[in-house]
């Protein structure tokens, strides 16, 4: 038996799911990251190291007065259009009335107005200090300037959970979570030095039966404070080159202290789940950013509700009567609305517009154009109705 070494591999942090979403965004200051690092959004409820007493810290942001004024003006104009649609226009065109087609625009302008008042605008993104940034700075070709604040990082607790779908009898492994180590080198070799390593006892609790597809492993933390210190040679090659796939797994980002409902502690305990199979080595972390996904669904349902609000207004005013509208008028205005809601809900699934390469841009544009035809058709029908109906004055 010859021991070659261990690999160090970065895997998704179970406590924070983020997407690479900063293409096409301006970053404050300089930000040139070394190989192996990227930017991710800071959780919205992150906590920060307090500023030193007496140090005023301010981050420039602005409220777009023009945007707010446009939103107010649009809301008033569209509100008037909608108000004037009552009565004769709706009697004539039913739910296809041109005045009703402004409803989603009105609703969204109001939403945007409130949003613009609650959330300031930032001309660029700011990089926040963290241990990973410090780590990146120790590497060559890292140049990050103009960071703001610093995140509070916490150590995950040493809970264990293990499961395996392996049916082989060679699955007993040592695992531990929340281990800290430092890489040092002796000569040309890189070594990982572990201090204060909590080692778990791993034993077989039950064999897999035909009913259960997963194995339960009995885990027992060693009592007392363990103070072993040892080091392991690091392999920097691919995992296939390592016969036994021994590994140190690192999370993509440290565990960040958060203030919101997404209580970090509930995720911490799920860290450190190793599923090991000699044939197919893989690591599954059951941890999910539950708070964030709930939030995402909340956001999505609000989006759906906002869409439905415009439908409710249209229905409330027209009672969905057809009036004497033509099939084309009803068809185009409704297709416009339905596609619009579809796009609104679809966009909640992708965070921002980004593309790699020209073909994706072409794909987006052709998608927008093909769907946009319903809106263009809607505009034409509205224009036609508007012209044939005429400008009116209500005499009261």
């Amino acid at each position, binding site marked *: 038996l010859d021991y070659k070494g261990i690999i160090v591999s970065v895997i998704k942090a179970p406590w924070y799911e983020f997407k690479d979403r900063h293409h096409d965004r301006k970053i404050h200051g300089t930000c040139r990251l070394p190989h192996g690092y990227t930017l991710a959004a800071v959780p919205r409820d992150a906590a920060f190291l307090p500023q030193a007493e007496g140090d005023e810290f301010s981050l420039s942001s602005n409220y777009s007065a023009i945007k707010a004024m446009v939103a107010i003006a649009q809301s008033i104009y569209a509100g008037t259009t909608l108000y004037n649609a009552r009565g004769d226009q709706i009697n004539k065109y039913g739910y296809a009335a041109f005045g009703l087609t402004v409803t989603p625009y009105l609703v969204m302008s109001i939403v945007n107005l409130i949003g613009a008042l609650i959330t300031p605008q930032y001309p660029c993104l700011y990089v926040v200090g963290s241990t990973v940034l410090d*780590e990146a700075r120790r590497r060559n070709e890292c140049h990050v300037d103009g960071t703001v604040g610093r995140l509070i990082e916490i150590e995950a607790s040493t809970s264990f959970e293990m499961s395996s779908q392996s049916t082989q009898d060679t699955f007993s492994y040592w695992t531990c979570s929340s281990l800290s180590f430092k890489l040092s080198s002796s000569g040309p070799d890189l070594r990982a030095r572990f201090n204060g390593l909590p080692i778990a006892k791993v034993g077989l609790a039950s064999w897999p039966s035909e009913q259960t597809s997963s194995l339960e492993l009995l885990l027992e933390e060693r009592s007392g404070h363990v103070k072993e210190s040892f080091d392991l040679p690091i392999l920097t090659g691919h995992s296939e080159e390592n016969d036994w796939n021994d590994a140190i797994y690192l999370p993509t980002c440290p565990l960040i202290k958060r203030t919101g409902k997404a209580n970090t502690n509930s995720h911490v305990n799920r860290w450190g789940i190793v599923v090991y199979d000699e044939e197919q080595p893989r690591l599954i972390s059951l941890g999910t950013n539950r708070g964030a996904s709930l939030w995402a669904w909340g956001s999505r349902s609000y989006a759906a509700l906002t869409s439905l609000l415009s439908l409710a207004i249209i229905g409330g005013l027209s009672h969905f009567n057809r009036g004497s509208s033509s099939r084309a008028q009803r068809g185009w205005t409704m297709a416009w609305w339905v596609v619009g809601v579809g796009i609104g809900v679809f966009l909640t699934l992708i965070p921002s517009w980004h593309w790699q390469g020209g073909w994706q841009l072409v794909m987006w544009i052709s998608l927008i154009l093909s769907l946009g035809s319903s809106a263009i058709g809607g505009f034409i029908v509205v224009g036609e109705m508007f012209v044939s109906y005429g400008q009116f004055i209500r005499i009261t």
Partner: protein
Amino acid sequence: MIQVFFLKTLSAQLSIATAALLVRAATLKNITVSVPEGTSNHGDPRLLCTPTRWTDVIVFFLGNYVAHAGTVIVLPGEGIKSAAIIAAVSLLFPIAGVQRGIKAIESWANFAMTDLEIAARAGALCMVVRKEYPNWIPQKDDAMSNAILKISVRSYKALLAKSGNSLHPVACEDESGLTFDRLGL
């Protein structure tokens, strides 16, 4: 939207039930005024509908639809390309901007205590993270926390066999600390 000023061209004499604009609803009386050809009341004595001019159509579209594109929320540091696309899509489909609007409201950003927290809620902060395997490469003096060590029994036996070479138990509280007997394996 008073069209009285535009009554010069192509006027036909039409007798319509028109009241002075400020008269109370109950009293409508017949007077004779000049209105453009095509004026009607759509059968409602309380309406005066004059033909639409092309400027009316433009104002209608600008005020109701195009103006909305200017209200769409721009993300922090968002590039002109991305902002232009979302504005264009919002012009066609206003609901396209709903996620941004709802997030901006839901973030409750201005109610945070510090500027940093406001910025975090607004989504204006980012952090450096490691890229997933195989992009990231370890380097001397890296200190890691919250890592997982996965090592097989077979590996450990091999390490023990070569012990003194690859595995150095530097300090053990008790010497039998790292044996399989102790661990029951």
